[in-house]
């Protein structure tokens, strides 16, 4: 069965995903996620790529254009080409996301906070996401910035490869990110350069590994009943 799968993968028989240009985060094979020959559904050779929503084109709609214009203008004033800093802009499900190149993150965040027309005063912390299939951009750090002045919320997304998990720290701009960045470090191994004290926060100090990465097992144990044993949730057959 595995030979068929490989052959199918090479001859590009895969139908094109609905929205092209998005990040491919995963290639799904077979029907039920069974990868040891247990897929008897007849769809064992099925291959589908999973992509996140791709870059949007102007106009974005609503106040999104205004924020994007202001941000680009403010960055140009600081002699930073917007296309260097902003990798792409995604509008999906009524939310605006700027993908920022990591070396420019601090400058962009400071601009977003200080520019009177933007004024995103409140950062609601950082959430790490680990996309194992997104080669070269495995680790994502997602920031949500809220503007109390204008009543808006946007998202910044920064990525780093697994081999070099460094992202500049935003603590100097948003002190509230202190614990949030420690948490993202603790769970994902994202190293926030410039953080005043990047140590583990949730797990014990001597813990090995970063438990919420996708390649870290759930760590559950099999549960015994009378005459039966139920494997841990991550060891069971799954549907995705």
């Amino acid at each position: 069965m595995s030979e068929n799968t490989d052959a199918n993968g090479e001859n590009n028989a895969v139908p094109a995903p609905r929205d092209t240009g998005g990040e491919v985060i995963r290639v799904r094979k077979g029907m039920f996620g069974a990868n040891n020959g247990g897929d008897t559904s007849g769809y064992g050779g099925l291959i589908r790529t999973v992509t996140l929503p791709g870059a949007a084109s102007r106009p974005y709609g609503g106040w999104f254009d205004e924020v994007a214009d202001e941000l680009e203008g403010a960055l140009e004033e600081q002699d930073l080409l917007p296309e260097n800093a902003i990798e792409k802009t995604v509008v999906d499900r009524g939310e605006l996301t700027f993908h920022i190149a990591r070396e420019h993150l601090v400058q962009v965040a400071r601009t977003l906070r200080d520019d009177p027309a933007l004024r995103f005063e409140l950062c609601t912390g950082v959430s790490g996401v680990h996309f194992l299939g997104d080669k070269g951009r495995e680790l994502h750090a997602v920031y949500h910035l809220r503007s109390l002045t204008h009543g808006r919320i946007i998202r910044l997304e920064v990525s780093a490869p697994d081999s070099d998990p460094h992202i500049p720290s935003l603590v100097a701009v948003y002190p509230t990110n202190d614990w949030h960045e420690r948490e993202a470090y603790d769970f994902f191994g994202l190293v926030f350069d410039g953080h005043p004290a990047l140590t583990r926060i949730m797990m014990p100090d001597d813990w090995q590994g970063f438990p919420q990465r996708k390649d870290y097992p759930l760590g559950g144990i099999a549960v015994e009943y009378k005459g039966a044993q139920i494997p841990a949730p991550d060891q069971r057959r799954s549907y995705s």
Partner: protein
Amino acid sequence: MGLEEKLPSGFVLTTVEQAAGWVRKSSVFPATFGLACCAIEMMTTGAGRYDLARFGMEVFRGSPRQADLMIVAGRVSQKMAPVLRQVYDQMPNPKWVISMGVCASSGGMFNNYAIVQGVDHIVPVDIYLPGCPPRPEMLMDAILKLHQKIQGTKLGVNAEEAAREAEEAALKALPLIEMKGLLR
């Protein structure tokens, strides 16, 4: 602990056992070991409607050195486990442990890297109390069952005999995985 442990087996010892058990069960001092959701229900048990004071144990001790019952109320994380053991070690004998809620008893629904799969890995447990979280009535039931157990506690040579019997029974007992039949 004292003289009562040195008494020879017989009529005097059983009388002392009954007296000591009665005294001990009538005034159990629980140590607060509230961890998560169950801790809120434990506090509710101590508050007005359920009124744990009726059983002579409304005073939750802040210090383990003044307590003889530890109610482990909630999920025990790997980081908390050494702390829990230290608190248990600080309690003077005789001491008892109620494992309140499924998380403390078996890890419950949190079968993962962070949670100790049952507090009996760390301390000996006298009463397992299921529920997520158990109702205050269930906690009181567990406490009353513990009172019965305390009442029946053996002393001196009788205690040694009881411990030996318990060990033999445990050695003979069938492991769970080898048991057959209905889930009873």
